[in-house]
């Protein structure tokens, strides 16, 4: 790129406008924009090499051909046609991919509703009811620490509680509420949703809390003084002002659940099909173009959801 700034960088430092200040006398002084490049460049390179180029490869490979054991770099729509196989022929019944996405969206919706409810009230408590800064810090930290520990461990931690002979079942049997242990507690949709909520409510709490602590407390007092009830203040003052946090948290939770295959795999006993799991299955079968095609579909759907949500709020302004 031969922009005017690049040309200026090649010029002797004395010629660069804006660097003619007192200390510019030193000949080795680098121009500010060059320093910015040095500072931000390495991170940009990492994203380029390990995120942006890989995404391009996903799109390219999704249009390649394949056989049982290798990639064939020739244009083919097979990755996609294999994925949508039977979608028209089987109508009005849903094909596998449609059913899988329906299941993923259902899990997504359930987890979103529950994490939003829990996250909102936990953040509300921390932001408005905990008055002392030390307590606020301590309790926020209490919510954050599990995030720094292993997700798999937090998943398998449910096994001794929800299993056939787990605490919940044996407790219920002992109290006589049920005769047989409940089978749907573990390795089921229930346990998947429970584990996802357990793991990812954190992503809802943090942004909502961030929005809430920024709310000017005098606005709430003003609402009370003007005669609003607690409920009216909540709906008309707090929720609108906390909306950016709610949207950011929702984007996090929804995109995580859309692409999840580990929690759904472990907690669903590898029996529940989901968007992320299809990709994993295809990779394990070495069908990379089909895996890539599924990744592209997942990416497009995730992107649509995010665009819809970011219409509600400008993410960049809120950080």
């Amino acid at each position, binding site marked *: 790129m031969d922009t005017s700034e690049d040309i200026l960088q090649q010029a002797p430092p004395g010629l660069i406008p804006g660097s003619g200040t007192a200390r510019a006398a030193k000949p080795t002084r680098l121009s500010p924009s060059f320093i910015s490049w040095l500072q931000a460049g390495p991170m940009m390179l990492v994203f380029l090499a390990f995120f942006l180029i890989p995404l391009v490869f996903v799109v390219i490979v999704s249009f390649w051909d394949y056989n049982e054991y290798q990639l064939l770099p020739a244009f083919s729509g097979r990755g996609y046609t294999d994925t949508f196989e039977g979608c028209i022929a089987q109508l009005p019944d849903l094909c596998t991919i449609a059913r899988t996405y329906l299941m993923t969206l259902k899990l997504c919706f359930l987890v979103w509703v529950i994490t939003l409810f*829990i996250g909102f009230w936990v953040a509300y408590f921390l932001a408005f009811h905990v008055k002392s800064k030390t307590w606020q810090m301590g309790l926020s930290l209490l919510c954050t620490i599990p995030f*720094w520990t292993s*997700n798999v461990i937090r998943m398998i931690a449910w096994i001794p509680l929800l299993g056939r002979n787990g605490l919940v079942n044996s407790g219920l049997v002992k109290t006589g509420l049920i005769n047989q242990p409940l089978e749907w507690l573990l390795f089921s949709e229930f346990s998947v949703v429970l584990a996802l909520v357990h793991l990812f409510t954190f992503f809802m709490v943090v942004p909502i809390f961030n929005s809430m602590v920024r709310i000017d407390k005098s606005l709430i007092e003003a609402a009370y003084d003007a005669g609003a009830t607690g409920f009216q203040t909540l709906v008309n003052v707090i929720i609108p002002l906390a909306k950016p946090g709610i949207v950011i948290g929702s984007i996090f939770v929804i995109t995580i659940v859309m692409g999840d295959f*580990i929690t759904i795999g472990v907690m669903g006993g590898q029996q529940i099909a989901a968007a992320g799991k299809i*990709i994993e299955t295809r990779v394990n079968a070495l069908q990379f173009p089909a895996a890539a095609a599924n990744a592209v579909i997942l990416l497009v759907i995730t992107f649509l959801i995010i665009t819809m949500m970011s219409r509600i709020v400008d993410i*960049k302004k809120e950080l």
Partner: protein
Amino acid sequence: MKEGRPRSFYVLAIFFAAYTLFLYGPMIAIYVLSFQGPQGGLTFPMNGVSTFWIAKLFQGTGIVDLGAAFRRSLLLGIIVMIVTVVLSVAAGMAFRRKFKAQSILFYSAIASLIVPSIITSLGISLEFRIIDDLIKAHWNENFETSMGLLTSGLGAHLTWTLPFGLLIMFAIFNRFDPRLEEAARDLGATPWQAFRHVVLPIILPSVIGIGLFGFTLSWDELARSSQAIGAVNTLPLDLQGLTTTVTNPDIYALGTVISAVSFTVITLALGTIHVLNKRQAAKGSDAGKGLV
């Protein structure tokens, strides 16, 4: 004014306590269960108390080659931590001025955070497979693979830790008073001196926070490693592999050992941050504390 706390406080306090129990309860359950007696099973009640299962892990007679996976994860975690801290601080400094490609970097970071991990992981694995094929076709037929812990694995982890590092840097510099740095420059400090002696000491507690994120996110990372790590496994991958097959409490013992490392790092980091903050409060500026 009403006296005391409103009723909603108590309702929400109970709600918060229940949430905390929900967060920690199951974890504590497996920490306890990893001390099962030798005859103990996967669930309560405990069948005696022993360190049998934990000892078994370290003897290497257990389920996985714990030592090798442990060392690999630790090495990767430390490298990821160092790279994350250095690159995040540098990029965070850059964002204090306007520069071209600023929004490209910002949106790359955000996208890297929210694009599903499996897609990033698949992309990296495709990228390295294609590189391998190119090397085999053009340079060296016997070439094995360029995929590995410290190539594709490191890259995959960085796409997860760097966005967090960058966002933390934004939070730091939102609160940072640029006049402190200007004062240093007015007193004749070079840009490097101003950074080294003024900016860095002030932001150091948060920088340690970035290191904490860098290490713990890498130490526990799973989804991005899954396709991109190459032939060897990290500790979380081994643990995940066990969830479908294991019938002994060794899986809990492994979980407890992994968590023990996490908690050690968390404690060390939070302790250091606390000490640094105290020192800053004690020896820091006396501005605004009245006239002499």
